[in-house]
């Protein structure tokens, strides 16, 4: 076994040192009935690299990589071009195979990265401070609601109909088991909901999204002020972090908490994970924030250094009184995010965001020109909703047969009855990875399928 350095001779001499007759002897505290007599049944024996590559390679080959065809999928996961530098650096063993930086003297690399990451997230969201990342955008959203509950000592959250339905689901799952109320408004493909009307003195927070799940860009400045006037917090969710390169950030609108998905920077699609949740708040809420935090300090010689801090909020110190049970972050994904954002810089992120928007505008025009297709959005960033003359799910299957991944049917996000009235809606995302030829191929194929 290539991963096991002990030789039979080592094992024999070590057994002598531990005064045991066999390795099995060391398992003597296990009830005899539960001890297997030898390697477990029902599984193959070990394989070499070549065989593993063949087996997993054949599974991989049964998928259609988004990059191998014109692809316009978004809905909370975006295909952006990640510079080669990012993955190279992420794979350095010193980052990849390190643990949580609990021993700061030998973890300054990871810690400085986290400090820089926190700053980048704060700048992008326009907030005061950010944590060192969460599992993903959806759990970040649910944790934001629970944090609002703690801050306001109230237990009712209002979830906008523009919130990504997976984020809504995760929050309502938590609501059910953890015990708070989550009022989820129906999907609002054309907007027009009156969130403020639902805010009462039991309401801890209102959760909105920008751009919302249908791609609409909103200004929540007034809503933020109104919520806060009623003692509730405004939580703004962002699923396409690149939009923060172009749009007024939630912090400038007055958001109390921003919960976002950071996958767009540095992270591949990965069939949905691992991704990286962003979590940023106003200064005054720092000590109520869940998750890990890195802070600046000095060492015994007075030199600047970094440590994990405010750990008295955390489960490993506070146990049942912790702000959350979370004890990992998305370290590597946060590193990838941070490297990509560092490469882009101010100039790059602005141009990339503009490029995405301009291409989306072009695509929207091309699709609007297809007979029977209507673009629902006035304003959008790089994703918008079109109304087709047929159910979108079937159209998408037809497009896939033509080797085009033509967007996410809204009915996929709202299964069963919830999709009623939205069966014909299709979410279309466009990024810098889509060429003019991709866009033309999509429009042409759609014309064909709808003809």
């Amino acid at each position, binding site marked *: 076994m290539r991963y096991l350095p002990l030789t039979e001779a080592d094992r024999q001499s070590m057994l002598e040192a531990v005064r045991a007759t066999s390795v099995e002897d060391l398992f003597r505290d*296990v009830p005899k009935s539960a001890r297997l007599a030898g390697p477990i049944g029902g599984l193959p024996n*070990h394989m070499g690299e070549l065989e593993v590559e063949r087996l997993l390679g054949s599974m991989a080959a049964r998928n259609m990589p988004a990059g191998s065809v014109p692809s316009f999928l978004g809905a909370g996961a975006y295909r952006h071009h990640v510079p080669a530098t990012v993955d190279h650096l992420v*794979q350095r063993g010193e980052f990849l195979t390190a643990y949580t930086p609990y021993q700061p003297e030998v973890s300054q690399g*990871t810690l400085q990265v986290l400090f820089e990451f926190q700053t980048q997230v704060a700048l992008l969201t326009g907030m005061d401070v950010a944590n060192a990342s969460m599992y993903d955008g959806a759990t970040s959203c649910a944790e934001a609601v629970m944090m609002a509950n703690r801050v306001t000592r109230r237990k009712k959250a209002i979830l906008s109909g523009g919130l990504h339905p997976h984020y809504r689901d995760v929050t309502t799952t938590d609501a059910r088991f953890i015990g708070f109320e989550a009022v989820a408004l129906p999907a609002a493909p054309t907007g027009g909901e009156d969130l403020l009307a639902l805010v009462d003195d039991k309401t801890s927070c209102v959760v909105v999204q920008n751009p919302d799940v249908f791609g609409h860009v909103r200004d929540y400045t007034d809503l933020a002020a109104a919520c806060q006037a009623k003692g509730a917090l405004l939580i703004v969710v962002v699923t396409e972090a690149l939009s923060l390169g172009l749009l007024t950030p939630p912090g400038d609108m007055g958001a109390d908490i921003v919960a976002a998905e950071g996958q767009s920077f540095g992270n591949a699609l990965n069939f949905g994970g691992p991704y990286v949740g962003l979590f940023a708040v106003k200064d005054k809420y720092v000590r109520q924030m869940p998750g890990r935090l890195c802070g600046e300090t000095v*060492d015994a010689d007075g030199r600047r250094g970094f440590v994990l801090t405010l750990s008295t909020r955390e489960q490993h110190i506070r146990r049942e009184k912790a702000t959350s049970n979370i004890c990992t972050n998305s370290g590597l*994904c946060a590193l990838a995010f941070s490297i990509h954002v560092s490469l882009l810089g101010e100039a790059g992120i602005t141009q990339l965001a503009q490029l995405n928007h301009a291409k989306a505008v072009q695509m929207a025009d091309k699709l609007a020109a297809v007979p029977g297709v209507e673009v629902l959005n006035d304003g959008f960033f790089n994703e918008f909703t079109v109304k087709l003359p047929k159910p979108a799910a079937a159209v998408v299957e037809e497009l896939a047969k033509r080797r085009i991944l033509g967007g996410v049917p809204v009915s996929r996000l709202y299964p069963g009855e919830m999709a009623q009235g939205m069966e014909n809606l299709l979410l279309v995302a466009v990024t810098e990875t889509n060429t003019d030829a991709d866009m033309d191929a999509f429009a042409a194929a759609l014309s064909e399928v709808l003809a």
Partner: protein
Amino acid sequence: IEEPLIFEQDSAGRTGVDLPDVPKVASRLGAVKPRAKVGLPGLAEPQVVRHYTRLSQKNYAIDSGFYPLGSCTMKHNPRLNEKMARLPGFSDVHPMQPVSTVQGALELMDQLAYWLKTLTGMAAVTLAPAAGAHGEMCGIMAIRAAHEAKGDSGRTKILVPESAHGTNPATAAACGYSVDAIPATADGRVDLEALKAKLGPDVAGLMLTNPNTCGLFERDIVAIAEAVHEAGGYFYCDGANFNAIVGRVRPADLGIDVMHINLHKTFSTPHGGGGPGSGPVVFAESLAPYIPVPYVTHGKDGFALVETAGDGLAFGRMKAFHGQMGMFVRALSYMLSHGADGLWQASGDAVLNANYVMARLEDVMTASFEGPCMHECLFDDRFLKGTGVTTLDMAKALIDEGFHPMTMYFPLVVHGALLIEPTETESKASLDQFVDALRALAERAKSGDVAYFQAAPRLTPRRRLDETAAARKPVLRWTPPVVAEALAAE
């Protein structure tokens, strides 16, 4: 050379990417104006490469040396797994593609589920949880759902041994349960009688780690399970220490109802400086219906995904999309590489290594409990008594010897704990080197050289850091110098 923050390397207009020109179209942002400025620094690519390379060089890692962190299973992370996870057929697949275009991805999830069920003897598995603690949450939700389904609303308590990981009580509390601690016996196990005394109609379940955090196998585990079941509760096992028994003992055979598995411990997906993890949860028949969506099924046209809870007993999503796919690929690659025979050998070697370390240290340090231990061995600070040297000092001095410290001050059941987990991927030579270093330090501590320990570490990029100051007035982000000055002047 000190490495400044990226913000301190800023030059306006500089960038590390080149992008095509933006097509000239009228912008259609709706109500919102483009923002004026983000405030990010501009660096060229060579600077970025050097920045992160230099930062990485300030980290200790498994690749650079022995990392005997107890309860963390810092084993070798094969590069094959990284390569497999980067196959475009896995990494470049969108979660919302038509299922007809992702049959291989669903097959991989199905295969991983099969391995996990086979290795644990369990009936069902969810791959959704993003980490161990998330898996705990999932397990406790399932327990609550099961009691609710039976209409049993009187169970408000979860029993948790004193030695539990901090996540256990945090999870139980987060799910609205009160937490009742169970004491340990003198031999480091759960006190069965004390447990029985606390069991009753108000107990929803027990959360237990096995092997426990003292590195010991809970000898009475079958009796414990029976007692919990008899009282109408469910038995949750924290699977963080599964590495000790994987391929040798099936948790289902111990009476466990539900257990999470840390793919980033037992199955070697990298820790990555704190994540991402992946925490699938396996369920016995008793709890199998109570799992979150989504999950993979075999449909008539191949594999299908159930994405909504509907009217069944399954409950709603725990995260967006389908789980940590990238980690699934790595874990399955690890499993296939080991196979049944390799896992048998791996858990055996993990336990042998830990016992070897314990045996070679027990004359100079104080082992807390009698062996055999499982995959980790526990010492307390009695051997330091009167020396003025603390557990922390020992750990920091060990850094100067070229090793990552062991886990300190955990578990809480012994004083000044030092918990050492060597894992199966360390060679005997590496263990001997470590043991020799630790023996020398123990001798040195006993010789009265306190100053040496208090000044450690000396050979690191930073010496001991002031954690108190960091927490007292937290500085959690970089601030532009002018702003920082203004703030300081206030």
